[in-house]
């Protein structure tokens, strides 16, 4: 059903349609509207999940861990400092292979304190063992949540859906919210093989000695690497059910061009305009959007970028002292496979506005 919704409200609606049994979150800007809306759905009797109010993000992540371990679908959302506070639990959730789904409303991290958008929060937990998706639009953020549950639960890997704070959480646009029946058809019931149940007592969270630890961690590494196939399949399945496309990367006018911009998140929209203007000025330029950061879509990136002369990576996060984090990832995807100049650009930190003109300027460097 088409509705005019604020991004956060749209997320709350789609989460409710995914039928979680437990929702737990702690308020932090710009994630607040999502949890407020989820609390309201519960208060109005529209939702039937247990809404657990907690004293910190650390507790919120721990609550959803306990809920999923007990065999119930669960949801949390956070951003920035909250995500950093959760970090220890995020690693634990992934290590325990708990299919938690969370939304990260991407925001800068302090100091200096700043509530506006960039992607330094999510990038700081990129090695924690979560599948990480990045939405370009509110619609995509909505669609990525049922996908996230489907992928998480079929593979027992947690999934983080990232959406740029304010740009996607606090803006309002037309969104297609699926019908409950359609979601139920796409998203099967959560029936984990292993859960905490007295009829079949199981132990979770054991101590592993050096020999087993490495084996277990590397097995998880392989599992996440190989999750790519299942994610792509779930994306195709999504298209069959809902008619909308989800894919690891998006491309815009990339065939036979000399220069390609690469970006992650909502700046894709602005860059599309920049690319159109540059092309009308005679520049041979295209655009790639990264929608899946973990596992990283090396293959797709290579197939689009080989043959171009220059790649401008537009980063919303930096590994301080090295370079933009997306730049490193792109280099890794292309290393030894094609010859292309890579330009590292770090822009829009802490909500610094990037207009079409600013993005066009990058080509001149």
């Amino acid at each position, binding site marked *: 059903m088409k509705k005019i919704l604020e991004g956060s409200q749209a997320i709350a609606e789609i989460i409710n*349609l995914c039928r979680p049994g437990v929702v737990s979150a702690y308020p932090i800007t710009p994630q607040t509207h999502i949890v407020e809306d989820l609390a309201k759905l519960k208060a109005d009797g529209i939702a039937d999940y247990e809404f657990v109010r907690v004293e910190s993000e650390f507790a919120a992540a721990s609550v959803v*861990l*306990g809920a999923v*371990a007990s065999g119930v679908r669960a949801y949390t959302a956070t951003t920035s400092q909250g995500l950093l506070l959760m970090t220890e639990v995020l690693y634990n959730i992934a290590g325990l292979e708990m299919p938690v789904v969370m939304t990260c409303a991407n925001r800068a991290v302090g100091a200096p304190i700043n509530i506006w958008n960039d992607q330094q929060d999510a990038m700081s937990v990129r090695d924690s063992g979560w599948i990480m998706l990045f939405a370009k639009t509110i619609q995509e953020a909505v669609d990525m949540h049922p996908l996230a549950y489907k992928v998480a639960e079929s593979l027992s890997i947690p999934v983080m859906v990232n959406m740029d704070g304010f740009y996607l959480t606090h803006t309002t646009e037309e969104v297609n919210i699926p019908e409950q029946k359609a979601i139920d058809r796409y998203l099967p019931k959560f029936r984990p093989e292993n859960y905490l149940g007295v009829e079949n007592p199981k132990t979770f*969270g054991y101590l592993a000695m050096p020999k087993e630890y490495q084996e277990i961690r590397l097995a998880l590494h392989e599992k996440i690497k190989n999750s790519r196939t299942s994610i792509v399949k779930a994306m195709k399945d999504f298209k069959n059910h809902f008619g909308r496309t989800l894919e690891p990367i998006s491309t815009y006018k990339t065939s036979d061009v000399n220069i390609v911009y690469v970006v992650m998140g909502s700046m894709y929209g602005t860059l599309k305009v920049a690319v159109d203007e540059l092309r009308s000025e005679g520049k041979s330029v295209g655009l790639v959007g990264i929608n899946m950061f973990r596992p990283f879509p090396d293959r797709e990136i290579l197939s689009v970028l080989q043959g171009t002369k220059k790649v401008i990576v537009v980063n919303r996060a930096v590994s301080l002292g090295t370079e933009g984090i997306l730049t490193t990832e792109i280099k890794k995807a292309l290393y030894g496979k094609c010859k292309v100049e890579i330009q590292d650009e770090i822009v829009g930190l802490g909500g610094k506005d990037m207009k079409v003109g600013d993005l066009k300027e990058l080509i001149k460097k």
Partner: protein
Amino acid sequence: MSKNKYKNQNLLLPGHTACSGCGQNLAARHVINTLGPNTIVVNATGCLEVTTTKYSESAWGVPYIHSLFENPAAVATGVLAAFKYKSQITNNKPQTNSKSQIQKINPTNLANPTTPTNPNVVVFAGDGSTFDIGFGLLAGMFERGDDVLYVCFDNEGYQNTGAQASGASTIGSKTTTTPVGKNSIGSDLMKKNMVAFAVSQGARYVATSTIAYPKDIENKVKESMKYKGPKYIQILVPCIPGWGTEPKDTVHIARLAATTGLYPILEIVDGDVTKVLKVSAQRPKIEEYLKLQGRYKHLFKTKEGAEAIKKLQKICDANIEVYGLCPTCEEHQILMQYKK
């Protein structure tokens, strides 16, 4: 004779790797056996976890989860919320009458739709987790009024990492972060009063015990389960390597902790002190307790040590007064202020 006579009925099974004479694993066995098989254990990081779940073996006969050092209270909340949701939808009573979003809920949605009654949820945590790093999350669990039994096995320090001081360490005790030296007699801080804290936060049933009194532990666990809401039981469990004691002395030392008055044995229900373990008028002096433990050995050698012993004796005397532990004492003097 039935075959079952020889069947091991324990829910914390032999084969774990704890030290001989370990107070904690002994206490944990009494608690879990009392709670029975319809129980889910949420364990904090610590010796109990390390000694019972070494991959790929488990000593637990009940469902068990260990996540982190500081979060068992919140994980327990999550487990509880999940079972609340399960029973809500197995009872097929959706809380909603709205037609717009929710369809009738199908009980087969559940992982285990047949759970007859909701299981007991129990947290097992040490004093490091409880008094210190998980303190805030425990406060959250109390605030939410979650129906969880939280059991703190108190061995007065971070024994799993090599006997560092925690908020539960007593004054004058030698730990590896409060070493004894020219300028130090060991820990110089008072033990945090977690019992008063639990009561002040609205825990419905609060009790202490020591491993010298297994029957008392069992009775308290049983009694606690009559109350819906947060319950807190703190059990003193001597640690052989951390305290520098002999395995044969575990029970003896745990008894002396109580009979000297240093570790008052209490039961507090909804803010009222309902039961205390009386101590004899000819009760042992604190030295009897201290001299059996390496962590207090140094106190007998110096003037400063003698001062510390005096302070510890004063704590015993104050406890006896405050909690009404002597045979003729008026009971129920304290903690009334917290009564709801």
